[in-house]
């Protein structure tokens, strides 16, 4: 059965940090279109610490590592992104405590738990034009694959990247209902949501890091992906 090891997750987080740090100003620029232009900086501030601390973090098990990452986010990430990503890591840490590798089902459960936590924290739901519009369908796709028993993780990853990437397009014309962008009404329509772009870029970069061929469709993701 396909399993995901602690070091795979660690490597995924390291790749994520690279993506976020590299796109600090681009993600902020995207946030500036309808939001307040701080998304990239907020996230990068935290991921710079994560990148630096990751090698020496307590890696007794996956849950412990994720909890430590959540704590770094809570301490260093401001804006909405702090509570959103902090809650995400914290909720993903809970079911993975004590485990040093995860089945696809366990991984899907952890992501599902993170999604529930983020929804409870920020009150957003599918269609509100937040990163949840990328993460919720990704979480569902993970569940599908886990239920189907898919063995090829590359296929799973590519599917997830495709879904998140597609969310940039499908949400582009929507009006944001949460976050700073929601306070500008109609004017958030026809701008991409930076959180969705970030999730899609992270997944695209994970593909690259794992030699899974994937070419982003959304221009923003293509631009942001390494």
């Amino acid at each position, binding site marked *: 059965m396909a399993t995901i090891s602690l070091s795979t997750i660690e490597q995924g987080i390291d790749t994520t940090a690279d993506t976020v740090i590299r796109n600090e*100003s681009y993600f*902020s620029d995207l946030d*500036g279109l*309808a*939001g*307040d*232009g*701080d998304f990239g*900086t*907020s996230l990068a*501030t935290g991921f710079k610490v994560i990148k630096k601390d990751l090698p020496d973090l307590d890696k007794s098990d996956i849950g412990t590592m994720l909890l430590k990452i959540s704590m770094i*986010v*809570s*301490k*260093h*990430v*401001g*804006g*909405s*992104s*702090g*509570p*959103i990503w*902090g*809650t995400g890591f914290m909720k993903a840490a809970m079911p993975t405590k004590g485990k040093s590798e995860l089945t696809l089902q366990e991984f899907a459960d952890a992501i599902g738990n993170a999604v529930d936590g983020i929804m409870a*924290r*920020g009150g957003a739901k599918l269609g509100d034009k937040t990163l949840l519009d990328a993460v919720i369908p990704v979480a569902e796709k993970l569940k599908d694959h886990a239920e189907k028993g898919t063995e090829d993780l590359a296929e799973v990853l590519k599917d997830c990247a495709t879904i998140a990437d597609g969310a940039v397009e499908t949400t582009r014309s929507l009006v*944001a*209902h*949460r*976050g*700073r962008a*929601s*306070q*500008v*009404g109609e*004017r958030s329509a026809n701008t991409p949501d930076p959180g969705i772009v970030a999730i899609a870029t992270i997944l695209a970069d994970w593909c690259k890091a794992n030699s899974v061929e994937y070419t982003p469709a959304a221009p923003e993701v293509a631009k942001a992906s390494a």
Partner: protein
Amino acid sequence: MKKFVNKPEDFVPEFMQGILAANPDLLEGNLEFQMVKRKDRPVDNKVSIVQGSGSGHEPAHVMAVGPGMLDGACQGPVFAAPPVDACYETIKALATPAGVLVLVNNYQGDRMAWDTAVELAQAEDIKVDQFLINDDVAVKDSLYTVGRRGVAGNFFVMKACGAAAEEGKSLDEVKAVAEKVNNNVRTMGVALTSCIPPAKGSPIFDIGDDEMEVGVGIHGEPGRERAKITSADEITKTLFDAVADDLPFENGDRVALMVNGLGGTPPAELYVLYNKAAQLCEERGLTVVRNYVGEYCTSLEMAGASITLLKLDGELETYLDAPAETAARIF
């Protein structure tokens, strides 16, 4: 970037250190959590008033700490809510048996950070409650959004709650004061220029040489419309009418009137606006009992201003009259 800044990432901690250095008797700070508190607080029998928001709005937030105003405040990066830990540590540092009231400006980032921090504190049996400020009339309130933004009207909530807490009012009573002020205060702003967050290094929005953003948010969020710059009087009327119609303010009301500079607009221009706003009050039969002209809630170096009206009653007038002192001072 025409700014006084060393490394952009040091901007926020450095100006906070400057504030602390300038007020050694009044304030003490915790740089790790970008927190400023009254040296002589908390005290057991007084409710502590705290706030924390993104920085770049000075003298709002960390510069509003002092007798009769906030007991403590923490700040996030420029324009971004403080990290959860900063909020939590601020509550903890000001915790008292009388309780802590957190005044949260209605931005999702602030709300989530404070929600989390309040939960953490309550889990440790700290008595704490929070209140949301949302005085900006620029953007329609709606169930489907985060709702109206909290802007310069925040000053009046802090001032009244600070005074009520000094009087020894209970946590619930002080919260009721916050609610009364928030229910009676309305603000709208306009930007003539953008501002440049040091970390971004470029303007937060583009705006033509002859354009203004009516209803701008204090983080440069778009407002009601992008329009051609008109005369000071016309701009004042646009802001004033939006504000006065919203509550609405009515003939015979006693009000506080604030003309707040957004950071790049000098005093003389603010008084040009005040001059007209005071006339508009008179035309509507509003009596200006107190006025405030200056910088209360800025948006870095943005050229622009906001107008705030607060409907008063005897209780609120007493709170506005009460003595107060902060890092923002003249003498």
